[in-house]
């Protein structure tokens, strides 16, 4: 094997790393490590300037291994691997060392210890890099079909977008009817257009689209496979059907919290905004003294998040009541108002001009609802008010569906702490899951209003269209390989592999296992269990991991 020449690029990440540990010292140290022929620190390694420094480094110093010590590999690994490839270096010869999320950001008051830890991690990275081997990329064909879970505004929009490009779409809806939450809304802010005018044409378009097949009253029973080649088993009417699909989009939405036990909720005199929408749609609001309580069941210890849509929904419904009967008194009891952007802020100002009254309360001193009235301590006036009411409306948050956990388990994607679906990265990959080929949009990931939902749905459709239009996806060459001379064909690996990606085949040496690379997901269970130690997990092999352990333990 030719001489190993490692280049180490240590990132300041502005002050994110550089502010908390001594980056130049770390780079200096890296230079002293075995096989390291070049090391430098960069302000932002991921910037254009940083990337060209890597390219120059590879060229000028004839590097055949590259290490970037910066953020988590979960974010920028593909970027740096691409840069290596552009410079003629096999991307498998790139190694990432995480000194931000798992070092500088978590040891902010311990500069020396953090600097030492960064050095240790880079030493282990260099030990592994020395043993990296070039791998060939693996390409897998993509089944030209999308499966969308959820038939609300998000699902309908993604379905139409993908189908209009020319791909088959299967849309799975657990309820009888399409339309989701919008079926229960009257008018939408900030334009006050009717929800039906938004949703009905879309439902019609989906129903009549030759490329879209709708499965209503149906649920996802099981999901198998990997990007480009998912098998999704749909259960409807007691029957099961397996759908082969290249991509999956989760557009399952959310539901309104039913505020049982909150503020004397009874569905009659004390109702939710969703129930008010129905009354408004039916023209059944006769109340003239209305109090709306915001953050009912939201931003409290057991449900800490802001549901984002409820402030504007309440203001919009208050305006609608006021428009219907201008003499009506409408109070909005709020803790903080979220009316971001120009249009919503304008809408708020308009509502104040119409005479809607805003009263600020605090979590420690919430309003109390009794028959015919609401008592509230006005934070800004500093005294208690007794409001006479004939209707109390609670703005409750959107909450995830109770079956989200079950679906997440089938898809093998994570939920966040409030049980909404968790995207791959909050900023950089907001519409993807970490699992390739699965995307999300709308309220499945967080409460979003119609405008945001449509934007996300279009975005998720575009993301899903990338593998569909390419027709092929590249699979990370993190796969196992079997040493046919050591293998005795016992079949333990075949039994343990969760993807049936390794199997025993007859060969002229007798039965021998071998890996089906397109199916292999790289977990390495076969390798850690092989009695003969015949299986190598590429990029995470025994020698590499042992070298990392030894390097970490050195000093």
């Amino acid at each position, binding site marked *: 094997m030719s001489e190993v020449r490692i280049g180490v690029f240590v990132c300041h990440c502005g002050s994110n790393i550089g502010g908390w540990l001594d980056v130049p010292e770390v780079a200096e140290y890296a230079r002293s490590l075995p096989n390291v022929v070049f090391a430098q620190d960069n302000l932002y390694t991921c910037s254009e300037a940083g990337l060209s420094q890597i390219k120059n480094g590879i060229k000028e110093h004839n590097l055949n291994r590259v290490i970037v010590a910066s953020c*988590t*590999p*979960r974010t920028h690994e593909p970027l740096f691997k691409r840069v290596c490839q552009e410079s003629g270096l096999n991307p498998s010869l790139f190694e990432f060392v*995480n000194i*931000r*999320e*798992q*070092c500088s*950001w*978590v*040891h*902010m*008051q*311990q500069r020396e*210890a*953090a600097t*030492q*830890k960064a050095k*240790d*991690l880079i030493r*282990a990275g260099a030990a592994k890099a020395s043993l990296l081997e070039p791998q060939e990329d693996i390409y897998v064909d993509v089944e030209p079909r999308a499966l969308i879970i959820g038939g609300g505004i998000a699902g309908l929009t993604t379905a139409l977008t993908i189908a209009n490009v020319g791909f088959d779409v299967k849309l799975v809806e657990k309820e009888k009817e399409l339309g989701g939450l919008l079926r229960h809304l009257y008018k939408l802010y900030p334009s006050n257009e009717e929800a039906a005018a938004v949703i009905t044409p879309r439902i019609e378009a989906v129903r009549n689209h030759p490329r879209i097949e709708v499965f209503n009253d149906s649920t996802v029973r099981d999901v198998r496979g990997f990007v480009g080649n998912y098998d999704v088993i749909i259960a409807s009417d007691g029957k099961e059907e397996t759908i082969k699909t290249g991509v999956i989009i989760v557009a399952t939405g959310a539901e309104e919290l039913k505020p049982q036990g909150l503020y004397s909720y009874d569905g009659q005199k004390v109702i939710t905004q969703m129930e008010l929408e129905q009354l408004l749609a039916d023209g059944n609001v006769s109340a003239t003294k209305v109090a709306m309580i915001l953050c009912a069941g939201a931003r409290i210890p057991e449900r800490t998040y802001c549901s984002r849509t409820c402030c504007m929904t309440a203001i919009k419904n208050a305006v609608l009541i006021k428009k219907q009967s201008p003499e009506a008194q409408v109070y909005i009891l709020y803790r903080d108002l979220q009316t971001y952007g120009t249009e919503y802020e304008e809408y708020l100002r308009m509502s104040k001009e119409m005479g809607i009254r805003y009263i600020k309360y605090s979590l420690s001193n919430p309003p109390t609802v009794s028959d015919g009235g609401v008592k509230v301590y006005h934070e800004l006036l500093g005294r208690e008010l007794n409001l006479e009411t004939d209707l109390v409306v609670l703005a409750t948050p959107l909450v995830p569906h109770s079956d989200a956990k079950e679906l997440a*388990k089938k898809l*093998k994607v*994570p*939920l*966040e*702490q409030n049980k909404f679906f*968790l995207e791959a990265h909050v900023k950089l990959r907001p519409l993807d899951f*970490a*699992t390739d080929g699965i995307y999300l949009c709308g309220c499945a990931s967080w409460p979003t209003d119609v405008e945001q939902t449509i934007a996300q749905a279009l975005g998720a459709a575009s993301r899903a269209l990338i593998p569909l239009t390419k027709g092929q996806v590249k699979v990370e060459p*993190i796969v196992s390989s079997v040493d046919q001379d050591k293998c005795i064909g016992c079949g*333990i690996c075949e*039994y*343990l592999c*969760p*993807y049936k990606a390794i199997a025993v085949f007859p060969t002229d040496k007798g039965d021998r296992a071998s890996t089906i690379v397109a199916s292999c*997901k*790289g*977990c*390495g*269970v076969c*390798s*850690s*269990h*092989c*009695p*003969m*130690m015949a299986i190598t*997990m590429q990029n*995470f092999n*025994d020698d590499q*991991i*042992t070298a*990392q*352990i*030894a390097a*970490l*333990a*050195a000093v």
Partner: protein
Amino acid sequence: MDNQNDFEPRILGFCCNWCSYAGADLAGVSRMQYRPNVRVIRVMCSGRIDPAFVIEGFLRRMDGVMVLGCHLGDCHYLTGNYEAINMINEARKLLEYSGINSGRLLLDWVSASEGARFSEVVTNFTEEIRALGPLGAAEGRDFSELEFKLRAAQATARGEKLRWVAAKQTEFMTEGNKYGEVFSRHELNRMLEGVIADEMAVNEILLLMKERPLSVKEMAAAIDLPPPRVLRYVSALRKKGLVDLQSLDGNSPRYAIRVEEEVQQ
């Protein structure tokens, strides 16, 4: 006692790419501060962790080893973390046989959304190891003594015999062996322990003989086992052609590892 207070444990961590490593990242994004004692190696799945890696960590004088995977049922690879339970269970037994407090090895679950939990697990484990003291302190032994045992444990972990039983655990507990006999966890543990006891002894004997030829009596004294049992192992090794009678010390035969040229003949 000052030493004890200044002691900064060296801890090796293994995190799976999908859950615990992401949880560790989230702890960073959330700026949760924790002790800088753990050095993490990223693997794709906790089921990748070979008990040999754990032993290697202690051989390299780490004071603690921590393996974190996805919560049970949430594994990105479906069942990898159940296999991690089997593997870590085996590693724990090897440590116990090596005289190492198995509290130095932690297997726990952290999801991608549990940044706070990651920092809590790390903090708690760091403090537990700090309380145990440097490797050997809680054990009341010198590292050199432990090292010998760990080298035997390493060979045992990499040896075919133990790997067979360990790898078959899931199958034996669910579908049973080829006669359809299904084993309980308890029965499997006893089976594992039996194999570990034999293999540890064999590997210790081989390690001793690598130093110099020894009589059964000398070996038995060195590894604190009854001489008849040692003789049984030595005879088995002779049958396999790994060990030869080297010389006689009075009436006691001395055995040595067969040198390679002879094996090739």
